[in-house]
């Protein structure tokens, strides 16, 4: 029970603090914008500084510019042509040691929308139940934690992306002229937890992920990671480094960035107009610079304003991840940008991703029904599973 009247003073203090932070942020954003223009030229000195920062502190994440200017903004001049958009998303039921049975579930949803066809899109869901001992317990015989499930979901999503890309290209009879874009809801660069599993397991996961990216490339489809409301600050961290002298690039200074509370999104809300993209960058993460690069799948990104109307308030900045082999083809990049922008019409978010999410999501009611089915199946075999006393008590509240 929450006694709201006990929080009245704190609520007042909190609102004052938020307003103060907001004022400070505005000043920081102006400073960041000024730096973007002042340090706009990409030269060897800048690139050396970025490399020094990445070498000095392996956990430092900065943006490595791929163009000649940092303040680049680009709106494709060509008209959008019809493309096929494949949206894929995944959801999960995490293992619950208080539940009636121990399992976890991953469900992927996919939609194939052919722009200009007038046809209903194709849709598909793929649920997978993980229940075997080796799946639900780790090497220490503990129930696997959520990070393992998230990693499995990430892999299931890229597999679905590759599967759908191959299937759609086959349906097109191998016609490579039709632009095929496969969108994931989130970054294309996978997240690697340092302690979530042994190294060989992480390597196996990276290899499996990269194999799927390669399959997508093989069928001439463009994988895209679409990050709505990105919270990354790689460009701002790079701007901070750009302002440091080379000898001053040491871990302590890297962490003392003046843009600590800012995101790149806040910066580009003031810089990009509707359907304008920023310059191209790549992440300095070791995973990207070593594993992904060696596999020919290094990830580049740009920021894009998907809003229809100009102005800071209306701006909807998203981060778009694509492999470097896509980023290296400006015409292809323009077509991808136009197709995504077109699919965002009416929602400021890709329709195919909204639908993929809807297809993938497992609601609490569906979860209850699944657990009822599992319970009945066990009862038929003479076992009566029951949730823990704690879970039962919570249901009463």
């Amino acid at each position, binding site marked *: 029970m929450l006694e709201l009247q006990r929080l009245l003073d704190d609520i007042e203090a909190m609102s004052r603090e938020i307003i103060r932070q907001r004022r400070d942020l505005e000043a920081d954003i102006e400073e960041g914008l000024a730096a973007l223009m002042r340090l706009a030229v990409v030269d060897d000195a800048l690139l050396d500084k970025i490399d020094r920062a990445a070498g000095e502190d392996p956990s430092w994440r900065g943006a490595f510019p791929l163009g000649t200017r940092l303040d680049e903004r680009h709106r494709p001049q060509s008209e959008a042509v019809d493309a096929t958009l494949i949206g894929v998303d995944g959801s999960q039921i995490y293992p619950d040691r208080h539940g009636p049975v121990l399992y976890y579930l991953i469900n992927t949803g996919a939609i194939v*929308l052919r722009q*200009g*066809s*007038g046809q209903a899109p194709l849709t598909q869901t793929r649920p997978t139940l993980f229940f075997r001992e080796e799946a639900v317990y780790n090497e220490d015989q503990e129930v696997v934690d959520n990070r393992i499930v998230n990693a499995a979901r990430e892999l299931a999503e890229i597999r679905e992306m590759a599967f759908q890309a191959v299937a759609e290209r086959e349906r097109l009879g191998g016609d490579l002229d039709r632009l095929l874009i496969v969108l994931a809801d989130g970054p294309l660069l996978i997240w690697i937890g340092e302690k979530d599993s042994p190294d060989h397991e992480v390597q196996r996961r990276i290899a499996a992920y990269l194999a799927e990216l390669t399959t997508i490339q093989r069928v001439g489809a463009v994988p895209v990671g679409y990050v709505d409301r990105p919270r990354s600050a790689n460009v701002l961290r790079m701007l901070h480094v750009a302002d440091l002298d080379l000898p001053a690039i040491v871990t302590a200074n890297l962490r003392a960035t003046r843009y600590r509370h800012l995101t790149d999104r806040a910066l580009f809300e003031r810089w990009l107009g509707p359907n304008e993209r920023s310059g191209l960058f790549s992440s300095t993460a070791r995973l990207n610079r070593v594993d992904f690069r060696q596999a020919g799948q290094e990830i580049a990104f740009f920021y894009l304003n998907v809003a229809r109307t100009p102005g800071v308030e209306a701006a909807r900045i998203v981060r778009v991840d694509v492999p470097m082999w896509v980023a290296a083809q400006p015409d292809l990049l323009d077509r991808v940008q136009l197709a995504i922008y077109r699919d965002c019409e*009416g929602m400021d978010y890709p329709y195919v991703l*909204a639908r993929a999410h*809807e297809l993938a999501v497992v609601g609490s009611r569906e979860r209850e029904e699944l657990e009822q089915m599992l319970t009945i199946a066990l009862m038929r075999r003479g076992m009566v599973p029951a949730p823990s006393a704690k879970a039962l008590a919570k249901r009463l509240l």
Partner: protein
Amino acid sequence: MTAPASPLGRILRSSTTTFTFGSLDNPDLPAFGALVAAEVGPIWVYGLVYEVVIQDDPFVRQVVAAAGELTAERVEDMRQRRQVPVEITALTVAYRQGDRVYQRLPPRPPAALQPVWACDEATTAQVLTEGAFFRTVLNAAHCPSEELLAAALRRAAACRLPEQQQAYLVHAGRELARLLASDLPRLDAILRRLAL
């Protein structure tokens, strides 16, 4: 009954007097007053469609709000692919056991997920031949009974040979006059809606 290649939908819920089935939004949805059928073991249960409800949800409302930019693909996606079925409810009026049709309530309603089929012309003509189902429709307080009865009779007449249609309607009109002798406004409302 000769079943068409694919069912109209499947039963969502049912009772002795009505059954509701879910279907995707498509041009082949049964019309108001159409006869539909579902199998219950050895019998077929027949019902007259009287309510079609197209559901909405926040996603549909968001898409509609962006109506100026609606593409054909999005419209077809909403209609054909999303798990928001059109709910169709039929009033049970008859059942068939073997070769015989009984215009009365069936022993059991159709079970959940049972397929529901559209009835062909021959079946419609045969099931709605007698007038015993008139009272079932007239007594159904939860549906627009005058409209439904008139629509069903027009459809049943249209399922007959042209030279038999007038006679069928006249016969139906006489039966209605007998049933509604004490409720002339209601009789009048139905007869006015009977014109083919």
